[in-house]
C-alpha cells in the first residue's frame, strides 16, 4: 500500500503529514523544533527514512537536523558552514561591495543515490556539500569563484541560493538559482559553473538582459526531461529547452506572471503549475482568489484550478519552496501558504482540500511517495 509523507517547514517549526495512497485522511505530527524557523526539509531518494532539515533562528543561528526514521526522531548534525578561502565581496543593496556572510541554509538537496551526500543552498549565496550525512560541510567554491560573484546582489529576501536540481541523467550536472543573481549550471559536479540566464529580462536592472543579476524565484524540472527547465522569475514564467542555454517567456494568459512557486506533474513533463501573485509590492493572489494555474502545454496556455480553494477574501502568499508533487498514479499536488494552510489535490489539481489550515506560516513543502 502506498503512503505519502508531506514534510512542511514553517516559521515556527516542522510538521509531518502522512496519508495512505487515497490521500483523504491525514495524520499530523509536530511541531518538531517548535519556535524555530524551518526553511526546508527533504528526504533522501535513496533512503526515504533519511530526512534532512534546516533549522534556524535569528537568535541562535543555523542548525541542521537529521532523521533516520522517517521524521519520528531527529538529531542535530554539523552546522559549520565556512566559505572557502577569503570570502570576498558581493554587491550590497546600494551597489557597494559587501563581505560574504553566512546567514542560513534555505534548501537541502539529498543526493539521488547516496543518503550520506547532501547539498545545502546558503544565504549569502553559496553551495555546500556534505559527504558524511551532514556532519561536515565543504563549499563548492567554483560557483562563487567563477567570476560574476562580485556583481551578485541580494533580493528583498536576502541573497539566497534556494534551488538545487540534480540531473538524474547526468550525475555531474547540477542547476542552482540565486536571488538575485540568476541561474547557474555545472557539468562537472560543482568544480566549474556558468551563468544560464540568456533570454531573461529584468527591467529593474540597468542592463535588463545582463548575464547575472536576475531575481529567479524558482526552477523546476521533470526528471525524465532534464534539459527542459521551467522558471518562475520575479516577473515572468520562463522555459528553457536546452538545459538553461536560452530561455523564452511562457507566461501566456496568466492573470499575473509574478509568483514564487513552480512545479512539474510527476508523469506529464509538459504539465506545470504556478500560483500567480498580484505583484512584488502586494504579495497576495490577484482579486483575493487563490488559484493554481496549470498548463498542459509546457506554458503559454494556462487554466485556473479553483475547486476547493478560497475564491474570495484570500490574501495569503505561496513561497518558492512551498509546492511539491507526489508520484502516485494520479499525481498529487501540494502547496502551503503564509496563512498556515496546506492544500492537496489527489487528481493533478482538479480538486483541492485543505489538509491542515492553522499552521504557522508555511515556508516549504516537500512530498515523499512511499511504497
Amino acid at each position, binding site marked *: 500500500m502506498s503512503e505519502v509523507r508531506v514534510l512542511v517547514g514553517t516559521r515556527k517549526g516542522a510538521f509531518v503529514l502522512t496519508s495512505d495512497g487515497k490521500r483523504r485522511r491525514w495524520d499530523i505530527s509536530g511541531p518538531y523544533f*517548535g*519556535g*524555530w524557523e524551518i526553511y526546508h526539509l527533504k528526504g533522501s531518494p535513496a533512503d526515504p527514512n533519511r530526512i534532512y532539515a534546516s533549522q534556524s*533562528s*535569528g*537568535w*541562535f*543561528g*543555523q*542548525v541542521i537536523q537529521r532523521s533516520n526514521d522517517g521524521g519520528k526522531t531527529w538529531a*542535530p548534525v554539523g*552546522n*559549520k*558552514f*565556512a566559505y572557502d578561502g577569503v570570502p570576498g565581496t558581493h554587491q550590497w543593496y546600494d551597489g557597494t561591495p559587501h563581505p560574504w556572510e553566512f546567514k542560513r541554509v534555505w534548501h537541502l538537496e539529498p543526493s539521488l543515490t547516496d543518503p550520506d551526500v547532501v547539498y545545502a543552498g546558503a544565504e549569502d549565496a553559496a553551495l555546500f556539500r556534505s559527504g558524511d550525512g551532514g556532519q561536515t560541510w565543504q563549499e563548492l567554491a567554483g560557483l562563487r569563484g567563477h567570476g560574476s560573484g562580485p556583481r551578485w546582489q541580494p533580493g528583498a529576501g536576502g541573497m539566497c541560493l534556494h534551488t538545487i536540481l540534480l540531473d538524474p541523467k547526468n550525475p555531474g550536472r547540477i542547476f542552482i538559482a540565486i536571488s538575485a543573481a540568476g541561474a547557474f549550471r555545472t557539468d562537472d559536479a560543482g568544480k566549474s559553473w556558468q551563468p544560464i540566464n540568456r533570454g531573461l529580462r529584468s527591467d529593474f536592472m540597468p542592463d535588463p538582459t545582463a548575464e547575472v543579476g536576475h531575481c529567479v524565484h524558482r526552477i523546476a524540472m521533470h526528471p525524465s526531461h532534464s534539459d527542459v527547465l521551467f522558471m518562475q522569475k520575479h516577473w515572468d514564467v520562463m522555459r528553457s529547452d536546452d538545459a538553461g542555454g536560452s530561455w523564452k517567456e511562457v507566461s501566456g494568459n496568466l492573470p499575473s506572471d509574478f509568483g514564487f512557486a513552480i512545479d512539474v506533474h510527476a508523469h506529464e513533463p509538459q504539465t506545470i503549475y504556478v500560483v500567480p501573485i498580484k505583484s512584488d509590492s502586494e504579495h497576495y493572489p490577484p482579486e483575493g482568489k487563490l488559484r493554481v494555474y496549470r498548463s498542459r502545454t509546457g506554458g503559454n496556455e494556462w487554466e485556473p484550478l479553483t475547486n476547493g480553494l478560497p475564491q474570495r477574501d484570500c490574501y495569503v502568499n505561496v513561497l518558492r519552496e512551498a509546492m511539491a508533487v507526489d508520484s502516485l498514479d494520479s499525481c498529487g499536488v501540494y502547496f502551503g501558504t503564509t496563512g498556515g494552510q496546506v492544500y492537496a489535490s489527489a487528481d493533478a489539481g482538479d480538486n483541492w482540500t485543505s489538509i491542515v489550515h492553522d499552521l504557522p506560516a508555511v515556508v516549504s513543502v516537500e512530498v515523499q511517495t512511499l511504497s
Partner: protein
Amino acid sequence: MIRVVLPQHLRTLAGVQREVNLDVAGRVTQRSVLDALESRYPMLRGTIRDQLTQKRRPFVRFFACEDDLSHESPDAPLPEKVASGEEAFYIIGAIVGG
C-alpha cells in the same frame, strides 16, 4: 563546578534541563565556560557564538550576579561567585522581534 543557565531553545536542542553544571579547567572566563559547554554539548556550537569568529551572536546576552557581561572581554575573569558556583552564568536570548 560552574553553573550555566541556558535559554529554552538551547535546552531543547541540547536535551538538558534549565541549568547545566560544568567543570572548567583554569581561569573561569566567558571563553573557558563556553568552550567547556560546547565540548560537552557539541550541538550548541554556533548557536551562542559564531563558529568561525567565536564572537557572541548579536541577540545572545550573558548575565551573572545581576550584571550584563555581554560586552566584557571573553577572556576577562567571570565574577568570583560564578567561579565558585554560588551564582549561575546566564545565557539569554535577547527580547527582540516576535
